[in-house]
């Protein structure tokens, strides 16, 4: 345990569990045929079901169920072939029904695990308690009018997956690693876009503190934290607040709190003081959801390769280190790019170009892997030119920069600028002769035992050939001439 809070009465450890709300990728809503597209005109994607008109009945979207099952499979979790829907009752202006349809006692997905990796390279398993499906609420807009809030129901009824972790997290960093890994898995699966800025992934954070070896103490829930950095900050300040209360002889109240990032503090949400009295009961409009094992098996067979598996395969198939493989699989688009470059080529050379020169170029030009000025095929062709001796590694840097700037193919650039590597031994020998004549004094020094000068001669010959000479040929020829 590396993260502890040193209080007046000794060391405290933190206990954290996360509830992540992930918006499901689907065309239409969980229980209605209205569209889910982000950013549409207010209230244009609302059906009578979403607006909770009397007599409207929910009909479940099969694809949303499939997405929940895929996610469960991706989290190595148990899939429950029978699950049920309940009503979670509360009043709020963004919830026209007066209840949220959710799964309480019988969720579609049970226990699973996520393996996270920390900055020091260690891995840890974090337990998943459950995943259930539920409806998202609408959106309130507060800044348009001094006395009114505006209600937009476009989001109301969009399918969410609530993914609940075990209270296994012991450090703010682990919470960050957990969220990044979960988001990575969701993106690979294509079940949630993981975009925290647009609110398609949000986290509720449960925090408590305790002395080593104690049972759990009272926890507080910090609602709707919308970035990984804020989750880590919220855990730190909330844990510090609780330690202070306990050490001053107080009691931590179980309550719902808000994280105020600007002030760096958490505070009570007074409106939610009854929030835990949801009076769940089975939704009488919805029969139990029953799915077939064969259908689950078919979904499983069609799952894409997930980050951990891809990382292991990259290591064995392309002979690259664990760390590099991790960098590549962090985003699926980067992994795909790499694989196009590396297929049938030198995997180690490919990783150094992708994570080195390419990433640097993307940074510099403000582009992403999707909008990269150099595509994977072109970078691959350039590696071919290195492999077949057309250009050497040093010239390749120059060719690559030109590719970034002009978007031209590597062969065209090599021809246009005359960068073809010199392998003609006549030309190389001539350059060596010229260098040895110009630096006759250095030749004498070298021959009297100053071996270190060899590098100097290599440099001069490369300069003479404008960097295009094949370095291996230069080394060989130079050695035999100097030692003659």
């Amino acid at each position, binding site marked *: 345990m590396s993260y502890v809070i040193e209080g007046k009465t000794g060391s405290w450890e933190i206990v954290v569990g996360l509830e992540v709300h992930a918006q499901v990728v689907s065309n239409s809503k969980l229980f209605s045929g209205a569209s889910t597209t982000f950013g549409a005109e207010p209230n244009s994607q609302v*059906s009578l079901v979403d607006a909770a008109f009397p007599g409207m009945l929910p009909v*479940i979207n*099969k694809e949303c169920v499939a997405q929940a099952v895929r996610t469960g499979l991706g989290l190595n979790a148990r899939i429950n072939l029978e699950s049920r829907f309940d009503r979670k009752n509360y009043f709020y202006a963004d919830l026209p029904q007066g209840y949220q349809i959710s799964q309480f006692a019988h969720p579609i997905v049970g226990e699973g695990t996520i393996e996270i990796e920390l900055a020091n390279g260690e891995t840890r398993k974090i337990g998943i308690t459950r995943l259930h499906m539920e409806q998202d609420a609408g959106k309130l807009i*507060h800044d348009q009018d001094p*006395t009114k809030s505006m209600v937009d129901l476009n989001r109301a009824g969009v399918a969410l997956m609530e993914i609940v972790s075990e209270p296994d997290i012991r450090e703010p960093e682990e919470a960050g690693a957990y969220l990044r890994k979960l988001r990575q898995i969701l993106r690979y699966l294509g079940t949630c876009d993981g975009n925290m800025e647009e609110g398609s992934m949000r986290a509720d954070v449960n925090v408590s503190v305790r002395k080593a070896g104690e049972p759990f103490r009272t926890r507080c829930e910090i609602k709707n934290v919308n970035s990984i950095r804020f989750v880590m900050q919220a855990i730190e300040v909330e844990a510090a607040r609780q330690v202070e209360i306990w050490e001053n002889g107080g009691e931590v109240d179980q309550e719902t709190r808000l994280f105020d990032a600007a002030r760096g503090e958490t505070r009570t949400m007074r409106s939610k003081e*009854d929030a835990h009295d949801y009076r769940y009961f089975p939704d009488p409009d919805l029969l139990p959801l029953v799915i077939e094992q064969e259908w689950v098996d078919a979904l499983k067979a069609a799952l894409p390769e997930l980050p951990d598996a891809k990382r292991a395969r990259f290591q064995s198939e392309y002979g690259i280190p664990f760390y590099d493989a991790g960098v590549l699989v962090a985003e699926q688009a980067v992994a795909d790019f790499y694989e196009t470059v590396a297929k049938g080529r030198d995997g180690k050379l490919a990783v150094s170009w992708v994570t080195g020169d390419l990433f640097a170029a993307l940074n510099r030009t403000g582009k992403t892997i999707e909008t990269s000025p150099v595509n994977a095929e072109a970078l691959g062709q350039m590696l071919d030119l290195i492999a077949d001796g057309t250009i050497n590694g040093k010239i390749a840097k120059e060719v690559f920069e030109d590719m970034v700037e002009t978007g031209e193919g590597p062969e065209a650039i090599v021809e246009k600028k005359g960068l073809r590597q010199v392998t003609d031994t006549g030309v190389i020998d001539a350059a060596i002769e010229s260098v040895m004549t110009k630096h006759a004094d250095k030749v004498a020094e070298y021959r009297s035992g100053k071996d270190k000068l060899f590098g100097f001669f290599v440099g001069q010959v490369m300069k003479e050939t404008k960097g295009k000479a094949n370095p291996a040929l230069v080394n060989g020829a130079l050695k035999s001439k100097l030692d003659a």
Partner: protein
Amino acid sequence: MSLDLATTRRIAKLARIGLEDAELETVRQKLDGILGWVDQLSEVDVEGVPPMVGTETEALRQRDDVVTDGNCRDAILSCAPEKSGPFYTVPKVVE
């Protein structure tokens, strides 16, 4: 089973129903009567009987993931007690 006044007050609050103190005892008695009536069910021995979730034998019907609805803002907002432009409006609620 006997419902007390404090619980009655809490149920009313959760349901957002305003009750005068004078009404409270009447409502308590009525609710208590309903609960007592329903409570007769607990006299039946259901040991080993799976919970009945509906009168139908079929499982939940599922629909395809296609957009078939929406784009009816004017119709929906026509029923709103208060609106402004494309929005419903409510008294300001800010945390």
